[in-house]
């Protein structure tokens, strides 16, 4: 009887593992699309509202997807600290803190890091151009991520359940 409960626990744990991993793969395209939308908001704020960077970041954090609002909130906080660091450095720090809790991978973070080096050091039109470049790169990454997700998500789910079954049989 106890053996049966243990076997069920192992099976559930492995299946959960597989499902969670598949979930991460599916979250990534959604988060990349959310990032695109947030960058569009930032571009609008900077180009048409001429809002200073900390306020613009906070505005975007309030209006974008909750999953990635944290990044902009962190950047706004770092900028308001006024400890002499540039906009790019504040962005890097916020990115380093925020990136582990997202489903984004190194490629996406690299795209975002490149944006950081051009934040706040040029005029509005130039900022808008850099933001457009980042958005198009993110769009390409998003379509690739969607393809990846469709391929891998079901595979990881199956793999999770099957390896649970395997462990149960081996340890029986």
């Amino acid at each position, binding site marked *: 009887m106890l053996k049966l409960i243990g076997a069920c626990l192992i099976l559930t744990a492995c299946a959960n593992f597989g499902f969670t991993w598949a979930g991460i793969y599916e979250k990534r395209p959604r988060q990349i699309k959310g990032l695109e939308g947030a960058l569009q908001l930032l571009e609008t704020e900077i180009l048409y509202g001429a809002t200073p960077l900390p306020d613009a970041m906070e505005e975007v954090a309030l209006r974008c997807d909750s999953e990635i609002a944290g990044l902009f909130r962190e950047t706004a906080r770092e900028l308001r600290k006024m400890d002499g660091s540039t906009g790019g450095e504040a962005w890097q720090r916020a990115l380093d803190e925020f990136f582990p809790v997202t489903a984004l991978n190194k490629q996406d973070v690299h795209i975002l890091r490149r944006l950081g080096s051009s934040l706040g050091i040029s005029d509005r039109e130039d900022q808008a151009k850099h933001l457009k470049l980042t958005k198009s790169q993110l769009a390409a990454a998003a379509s690739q991520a969607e393809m990846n997700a469709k*391929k*891998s998500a079901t*595979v990881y789910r*199956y*793999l999770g359940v*099957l*390896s649970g*079954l*395997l462990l149960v*049989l*081996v340890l*029986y």
Partner: protein
Amino acid sequence: MDTELIFQLAGISIVITVIYTVLKQAGRDEFAFSTLLLGIVVVLAMVIPKIADLFETVRSVFRIY
């Protein structure tokens, strides 16, 4: 007389075959192959002690060598 071993081996082979097919279909051929090897090693590890027992029993029954 350990009849459960047969069912265990059958179950493991079926699961390994399904994993192999799923991985191959998903394109990860090397991973599928290494899972297959892992399964073979596990099955061998379960079967070899029984074969050793068999030889021991035969030896003690017939007392030939």
